[in-house]
C-alpha cells in the first residue's frame, strides 16, 4: 500500500462509498433523481388525517408504503440505509463495521395513544395525566411503550444493520442530517473508526406538527396547487412545505475504502458549524452565525469559496431563511456568488426536517456523479433582492466537481458540508 492519503491538516480523508434516499418522490436514489432532474414535485394534499381548521393542507408525506405512519421514520430510514450499504458493499449483511449516527425526530406518546389511554381511565384518579398514567401502568406493555423512548429508532437501526458500539441518536432541528454526517466525519478523522453509517430520517407529519409550524408562521399556505407551493428564492415565497424522507451515507477512511476495492463516490472536504445566540427561531440580523458556519467550513476544508462549483441551498422558501442565506453567502463569496449555480431541492421534495441535511448531501453527491444540477422549481417571480443563479425550473448539465451544502435549524443551528469528487 502506498502512502496514506491525508488532507491539508494531516487528517485521514473521508470518502463516501454508499448513498441512499427516500422521499415523497419515491424509494431509491435513481427514482428520486429522475424526478428531481425532471423538475417534478412530490408535494400533494394531505390525506393522512383530516385537514379541517388547518391553514396549511399540503405536505410531502410518504403515503405509498403500507407501513403505519407511526412506524414510518424507522421503516424509511431502513430503506435508505439498506440502499447505501448495498452500494458500498461494506461489511456483511447485518454487520456494518462502524458506528451509527442517526438524525431522528423527537418522539412522544401520540394523540392516538393518549386518546386510547384516556378513554378507559378512571375520573377519580386525578388530572388527565394521572388518569393516563394509571391506565399505562395497568397496560405495562414494554414493546408498545419502547416505541416512545428517544433512543428507539437509533437502537432499531443499530439492531438491523449491526453497527458497532452504542448508536448516537441526535437532533439539531433542521440541521440534524448534516450533524449526523459531521459526527461520522469527525470519528473517521480521529481514527476511532474506518467506517460510519450516517442516517437522517424523519416522517413526523401529524396534525399537531403541522399546526405547530403554522403557529410559528413557518409553513406555506399556498394550498391551491400543491406542487407549486414551495417557492425558494421567489418574491412570492410564503413558507416551507413540511415533508418526509430519509437518506443514508456510508462514510469511510479513504485509504481503507480503496484498499478493499470500494468505489469512491465523493470525499467530504469540509464540515463545520457555528451556533447563533440571537433568537430561538431567527438568525442574527447581520448573518454572522451563518457566515461563521460557512467560513469555518472553508477553513476546515482548506478551500476558497472560488473553488465551489455548485451550492445545494438550505433554501426552505421562508421569507427569512432565503434572504439570510443569500446575504450570508454573498458576504463569504463576494461578487463571485452571482456566477455559482445554487438550487433548492426543497422546491420539489419540501422540507424533510431532521432528514433534510442528509437527503441534500446525497443529492449533492449525485449532482457531481451525474453532471446534472437539479433545478429550483416554481421560480416564476424572482426576488430582486436575491440576485442568484437559482437554476430556475429546468435542470442543467454541468461539470460539478465541488458542492457546498447548507443546513440551518431553529435553536441557532448552522452546519455546512463541502463534498468533492474523488481526489485524482
Amino acid at each position, binding site marked *: 500500500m502506498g502512502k496514506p492519503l491525508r488532507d491539508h491538516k494531516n487528517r485521514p480523508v473521508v470518502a463516501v462509498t454508499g448513498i441512499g434516499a427516500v422521499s415523497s418522490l419515491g424509494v431509491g436514489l435513481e427514482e428520486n433523481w429522475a424526478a428531481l432532474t425532471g423538475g417534478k414535485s412530490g408535494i400533494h394534499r394531505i390525506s393522512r*388525517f*383530516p*385537514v*379541517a*381548521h388547518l391553514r396549511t393542507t399540503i405536505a410531502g408525506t410518504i403515503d405509498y408504503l403500507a407501513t403505519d405512519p407511526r412506524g414510518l421514520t424507522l421503516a424509511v430510514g431502513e430503506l435508505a440505509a439498506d440502499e447505501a450499504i448495498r452500494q458500498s458493499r461494506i461489511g456483511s449483511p447485518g454487520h456494518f463495521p462502524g458506528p451509527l449516527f442517526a438524525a431522528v425526530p*423527537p418522539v*412522544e*406518546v401520540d*394523540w392516538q395513544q393518549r*386518546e386510547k389511554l384516556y*378513554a378507559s381511565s378512571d375520573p377519580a384518579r386525578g*388530572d*388527565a*395525566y394521572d388518569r*393516563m*398514567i394509571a391506565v*399505562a*401502568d395497568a397496560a*405495562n406493555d*414494554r414493546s*408498545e*411503550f419502547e416505541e*416512545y*423512548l*428517544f*433512543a*428507539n429508532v*437509533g*437502537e432499531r437501526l443499530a*439492531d438491523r444493520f449491526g453497527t458497532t*458500539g*452504542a*448508536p*448516537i*441518536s*441526535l*437532533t*439539531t*432541528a433542521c440541521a440534524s442530517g448534516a450533524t449526523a454526517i459531521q459526527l461520522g466525519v*469527525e470519528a473517521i*478523522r*480521529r*481514527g476511532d473508526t474506518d467506517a460510519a453509517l450516517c442516517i437522517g430520517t424523519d416522517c413526523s407529519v401529524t*396534525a*399537531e406538527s403541522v399546526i*405547530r409550524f403554522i*403557529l*410559528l408562521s413557518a409553513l406555506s399556505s399556498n394550498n391551491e396547487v400543491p406542487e407549486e407551493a414551495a417557492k425558494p428564492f421567489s418574491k412570492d415565497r410564503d413558507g416551507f412545505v413540511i415533508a418526509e424522507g430519509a437518506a443514508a451515507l456510508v462514510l469511510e477512511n479513504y485509504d481503507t475504502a480503496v484498499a478493499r476495492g470500494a468505489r469512491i463516490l465523493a470525499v467530504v472536504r469540509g464540515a*463545520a*458549524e*457555528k*451556533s*447563533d*445566540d440571537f433568537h*430561538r427561531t431567527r438568525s442574527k440580523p447581520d448573518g454572522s452565525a451563518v457566515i461563521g458556519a460557512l467560513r469555518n467550513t472553508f477553513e476546515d476544508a482548506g478551500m476558497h469559496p472560488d473553488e465551489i462549483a455548485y451550492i445545494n441551498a438550505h433554501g426552505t422558501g421562508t421569507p427569512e431563511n432565503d434572504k439570510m442565506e443569500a446575504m450570508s453567502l454573498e458576504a463569504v463569496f463576494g461578487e463571485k456568488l452571482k456566477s455559482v449555480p445554487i438550487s433548492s431541492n426543497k422546491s420539489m421534495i419540501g422540507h424533510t426536517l431532521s432528514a433534510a441535511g442528509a437527503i441534500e448531501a446525497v443529492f449533492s453527491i449525485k449532482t457531481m456523479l451525474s453532471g446534472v444540477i437539479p433545478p429550483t422549481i416554481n421560480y416564476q417571480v424572482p426576488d430582486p433582492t436575491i440576485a442568484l443563479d437559482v437554476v430556475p425550473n429546468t435542470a442543467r448539465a454541468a461539470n460539478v466537481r465541488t458542492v457546498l451544502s447548507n443546513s440551518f*435549524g*431553529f*435553536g*441557532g*443551528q448552522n452546519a455546512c458540508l463541502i463534498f468533492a469528487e474523488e481526489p485524482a
Partner: protein
Amino acid sequence: MAREVWITGIGITSSLGEGLDAHWQALAESDPPKPVIDRSIVSPYAVHPMVPLDLDKQIPKKGDQRQMENWQRVGTYSAGLAIDDAGMKGDLDLLSRTHLIVAASGGERDQAADAGILQGIGSAPAPQEFLNERLASDLRPTLFLAQLPNLLAGNISIVHKVTGSSRTFLGEETAGVSAVEVAARRIRADQGDIFLVGGTSIAERKDVLITLVGGGFCWKGDPISVWARPEQGGGATFGSVGAFLVLEASDHAEKRGRRPYAKLGPVLSDRSARKPGQATANGERQMKIIREAAGNRPLAVLSGATGMADATREERDLLAALRQRGEVSTVRGVANMLGSCLEANFAVEVGLAALALSRNGFYQPFENETGFEQPLAEPPSAIVATCWGIWRGEGIGLIEKAG
C-alpha cells in the same frame, strides 16, 4: 502525547440542592445521607423533586425564562452554574469557542391544553376535526419551541452565549454517556479545546412518566435500595437532576490559569439487546480497558444502577466479583440518593466523582439496607462511573485525581 481531558467546571442541581457545596454536604458530610422523596406528585410513584431555583441568578431576563418550559429552565440554569464554576461567565471570546453537547429528552407538553382536548374529544362528533380545532386554538407557539429537544442547547447559547458547535443527543442514559465520550474524544484528537456537556431530567414530568410507567420501568411505592430491587421485581425511581460539566484540554486550561477538579480517563459506551449476560460481557470488556488506564490501584465506583431487575442484578454481581478480587474498593448507587435521572445520569456521576477527588474524600454509603455499600477508609485516587440504561446501553468512565 495526547492531551489530557480536565474537568474544570461542574454545575449540579437536584433534589438535594444546587451547587457543589450543597451536594458535598448532603452526600459526604451528612451521616447517613438522606434522599428527598415526594410521593404526592404522581402517586404511587415516588420522585426525587428538583429544589426550587432562583432562576434570575442564571437566567436574568424574564423574557428568556418565559420562552422556556421548566426542563429547559433547569437545564439552562445548571449549565450556567458550570460556566460560572469554570470561570467562563461573560468571557465572550472563550464562550464563542466553546462547544456544546447536550443529552436531551423531549421538550415538555402543555398538559392543561392536552387535558382540555382529552376531556372533549370523546364526545365530539368528529374527533379528528375537534383535535385540529382545539390544537390550533390552544397551543402557544412559544411552547412548541419548548418542545424541541435541541432548544435546551439553543437557550444555553442565547442566555450564556455558548456559540461554538452545538449538538443534541437523544435518548436516555446512553445519550448522556455519548455526550461526555464524544467531547473527550474530540479534545484528545484536537477537535476542540473546551466543551460544555451535560443533560437535564425532570422526574415530575407526567408526560414523560406515561412512557416510563407504561413500559414497566417504574418502581412503585417507597423506594428501597436499588441493590435490593432485582429480587423484588425491579424498577427505577426517577429523580430530577440538571448536570453540566466543562471539559477542557489540559493545555488550554493551564493557559487560562485553571486547575481541574479531576481528569477524565477513558469514557466508553456500548449496547446490547440485554439478553442474559450481554450487559455483563460489555461491562467486563469495558473494565479491562479502564483497568489498563487506571493501573493497579483499587477503584471506587459510582454506579448508575437503576434498579431494573436484570441489569441491576448483573451489574451488582459484576461489581461484587470485582470487589472480591480487590479491583473495586467500594460502590455507591447514585440513584439511591438522587433517583435515576436518564439523560443527566452520567454527567452527574462524573461531576460527583470529580468533586470527591478534588476534596480528597468520598461519599458516605447511600444505603444501609443490603450492606453492599461499605464505608471507605482511604479516599480514592480514581473513581469509575458506570451507567447502564433502564432499557439499553452500557457506559463507563474513569475519573482520576489530577496530578
